[in-house]
């Protein structure tokens, strides 16, 4: 439209000289109003994050100052101590048993929910909506809140923790279960239907075998998350290491508090390794994941193979036509291994239930208390607090989440890109970046936050830094993975034109990864908002502080009001995320 129409192109002009009207004949670029709105919204969120970060007071001087605090702190604390060995072993077993029971409970309930929620198995639209609703709702209510409620309803014991973990985990497990069902090959299932199989048979023979590996991985993954989260449950009265830790810190017994935190760190790492071993045993083959556990297992496997331990081939028996003999499945290495692992898993589950010492009677008696307690939760109110305080606290929580997400995003795009095979300039860079991400992910962020808050004495700043740090581990990995999954064709095509590495990255890798980048960032924001709430409970400022106070002061109406605020915030963020993913697809 402007006056450049007749500009003679540079020396390398193409022979089909642009006719004078080419710019006029070209169609106008149309950007849909929705896309503009989405870009503006994204811009607004980024601006809000920058402001939140500026407000948070995170700066080099304050970090140096907090380092000074830390030094003074350690000078005062002296040495780290642990509970008595017997006590420690019991607490550790209890914590693991409780988390396992909770996760298994969620897994069992998730099967029918996932069946209803998956589009290819649901009996009807209404059922599907119900299934989806259950997953969204259970995910939206923080397990801490559930635990607070259940602690009220049950006589002390492990049941509140199990139920809190069990119900909250349904959200994630059922959703991933349903996703796995939707991705199956329909062929086997159709074949069973064609052969006259029932719906249940379709499920057990056609669907279950296909989804089982993915389901096992999901449950193990969630179990790791739950173990990390169990610390915070201790702060609201769920038995185990977390509760001991909160007692220690509250009674200013820092050396024992730090000792338990250390045990918790170690436990999380060990659990990740165990998960990986179990995955390998149940699914066969070396784990291909890049988590800490998978790496350790692979290393161990390689060492084992070198010693020639498990590579002895099993001699196949000669083919016999004796059907009776064929009926007996030989006890080959695979069968022995499967059986051993099966019984071991069973023993662990039984052990978990036993160590939890569940008061089964509570499950029957608690219904009587439900109406009495339920009425105290309704209607919601802010009680003695004025609305401005509460909204301010909620805003602070959102601010922490935004600032942490922004910090994590900036670092993750850099680290994550360099950790992607198709972006990294060489193998060394990629490997070291991957390793960095693995190490960061190995550290449970909430425990890190607790320790940082206690040590530096800085509430929201320490919390924000801990969340940002943990976020790098998650987002960096997701970015690296999705960049590695982009179609290689366009990258190759651009390399073939003579484009440089940076140009290929910007023009082929980045545009293909944008959708994933936005999706993952919102996912992080989503988790950060939940985590920021929890930070308040452990002393990181924001709405969580009021939530804990209200719970401990029996102001249940206030608890309801706060939970509703959190729910609305989380749902809004999730809504925005879904919208962004749709617009930027």
């Amino acid at each position: 439209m402007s006056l450049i129409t007749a500009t003679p192109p540079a020396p390398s002009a193409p022979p089909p000289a642009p006719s004078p009207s080419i710019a006029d004949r070209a169609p106008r670029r149309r950007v849909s109003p929705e896309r503009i709105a989405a870009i503006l919204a994204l811009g607004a969120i980024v601006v809000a994050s920058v402001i939140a970060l500026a407000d948070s007071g995170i700066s080099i001087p304050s970090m140096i100052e907090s380092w000074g605090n830390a030094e003074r702190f350690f000078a005062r604390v002296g040495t780290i101590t642990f509970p008595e060995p017997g006590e420690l072993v019991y607490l550790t077993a209890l914590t693991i048993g409780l988390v396992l029971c909770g996760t298994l409970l969620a897994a069992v309930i998730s099967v029918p929910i996932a069946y209803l929620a998956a589009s290819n198995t649901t009996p009807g639209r209404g059922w599907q909506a119900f299934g989806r609703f259950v997953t969204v709702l259970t995910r939206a209510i923080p397990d801490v809140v559930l635990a607070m409620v259940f602690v009220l309803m049950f006589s002390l014991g492990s049941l509140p923790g199990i139920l809190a973990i069990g119900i909250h985990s349904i959200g994630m497990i059922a959703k991933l279960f349903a996703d796995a069902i939707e991705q199956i090959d329909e062929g086997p299932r159709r074949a069973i239907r064609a052969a006259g199989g029932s719906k249940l048979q379709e499920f057990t023979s056609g669907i279950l075998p296909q989804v089982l590996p993915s389901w096992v991985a999901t449950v193990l993954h969630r179990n790791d998350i739950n173990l990390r989260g169990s610390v915070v449950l201790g702060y609201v009265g769920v038995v185990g290491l977390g509760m001991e830790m909160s007692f220690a810190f509250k009674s200013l017994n820092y050396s024992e508090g730090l000792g338990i935190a250390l045990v918790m760190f170690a436990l999380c790492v060990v659990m990740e390794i165990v998960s990986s071993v179990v995955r390998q045993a149940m699914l066969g083959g070396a784990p291909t994941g890049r988590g800490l556990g998978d790496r350790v297992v692979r290393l161990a496997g390689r060492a084992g193979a070198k010693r020639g331990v498990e590579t002895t081939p099993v001699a196949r028996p000669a083919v016999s036509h004796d059907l009776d003999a064929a009926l007996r499945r030989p006890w080959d290495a695979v069968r022995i291994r499967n059986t051993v692992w099966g019984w071991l898993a069973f023993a662990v589950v039984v052990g978990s239930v036993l160590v939890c010492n569940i008061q089964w009677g509570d499950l029957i008696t608690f219904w009587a208390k439900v109406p009495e307690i339920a009425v105290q939760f309704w209607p919601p109110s802010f009680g003695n607090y004025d609305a401005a305080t509460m909204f301010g606290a909620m805003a602070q929580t959102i601010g922490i989440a935004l600032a942490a997400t922004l910090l994590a995003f900036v670092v993750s795009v850099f680290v994550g890109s360099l950790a992607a095979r198709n972006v990294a300039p060489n193998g060394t860079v990629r490997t070291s970046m991957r390793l960095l991400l693995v190490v960061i992910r190995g550290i449970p962020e909430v425990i890190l936050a607790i320790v940082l808050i206690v040590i530096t004495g800085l509430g929201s700043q320490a919390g924000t830094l801990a969340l940002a740090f943990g976020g790098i581990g998650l987002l960096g990995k997701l970015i690296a993975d999705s960049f590695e999954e982009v179609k290689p064709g366009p990258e190759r095509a651009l390399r073939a034109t003579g484009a440089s590495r940076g140009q290929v990255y910007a023009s082929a890798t980045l545009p293909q990864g944008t959708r994933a980048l936005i999706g993952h960032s919102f996912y992080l924001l989503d988790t950060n908002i939940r985590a920021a709430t929890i930070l308040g409970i452990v002393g990181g400022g924001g709405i969580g502080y009021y939530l804990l106070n209200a719970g401990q002061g029996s102001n249940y109406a206030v608890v309801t009001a706060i939970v509703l605020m959190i729910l609305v915030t989380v749902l809004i963020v999730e809504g925005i995320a879904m919208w962004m993913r749709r617009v930027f697809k």
Partner: protein
Amino acid sequence: MSTQVGNEDSVVIDVSGLTKEFGRTVALQGASLTVARGEIVVLLGLSGSGKSTLLRHLDGLETPTSGSVRVLGQEVPRLTGRRLRALRSRMGFVFQQFDLVPSLTVLENVLTGALSELRGPRIGLWSYPKRLKLTALGHLDRVGLLDRAYQRADTLSGGQQQRVAIARALMQDPEILLADEPVASLDPESSEQVMSLIREIAMDEGLTVVCSLHQVDLALSWGDRIVGLRHGEVVLDTPAEGLSKAEVMEIYGRVATSTTELEAIEVELSDAAADAAAETHLADGALRS
């Protein structure tokens, strides 16, 4: 060994004794090929015969196990970094799967062909100079897709996407155009359109074209010269004119080791589109990054 020294002007591609192994698979076995400026050459062969691998070597996307690859007077395997990119920018490459960036507009996809003459990464249409945008629009007009300039690339049909890919290659103002099974993923009508477009542009611009195909009929009617590959070896190199399908089949038959293999050729030649796709995947895995 280059016997063509001194003919730099007329000989633009000179491959000799090229061998490429992927692990234990031998993709090329002592292949040799000389192409003069302005020639339109078809590489004909079954899936797995080494056509794609040969083409990729010309553009430096693969490193040979042994042998020499001279393009435009330069030994390709010896080039790295900036000099390799400079050579690549003189060759357009059209791929079977089009390889456009799906989420970018058609125009931006065409513009990416000019990246080698720009410095630094570019994100978004605004980051390209107006001069290039006009040139790109001109090329889109040339391939008949000017009206699609601001649509996302993945909203186009396969044939249209391949025409966009051709426009992208034209952005480089290339001397040589390499095409790897450019129509194997297209329906017959789009194939016809794309192939005649390539030929037309090649004639107009005086481009040298090396195009791999698996359809004997198409190869005979389209190319000036047919180079047949089999098991990574060049088994046929002759002008297309006057060559009949039966003769081509016979030449394949002579090097086939058994009658079953000969039958396999017939079967494969008739439905090699899927196999060609498989071949691409195979080679992708080993692609040099």
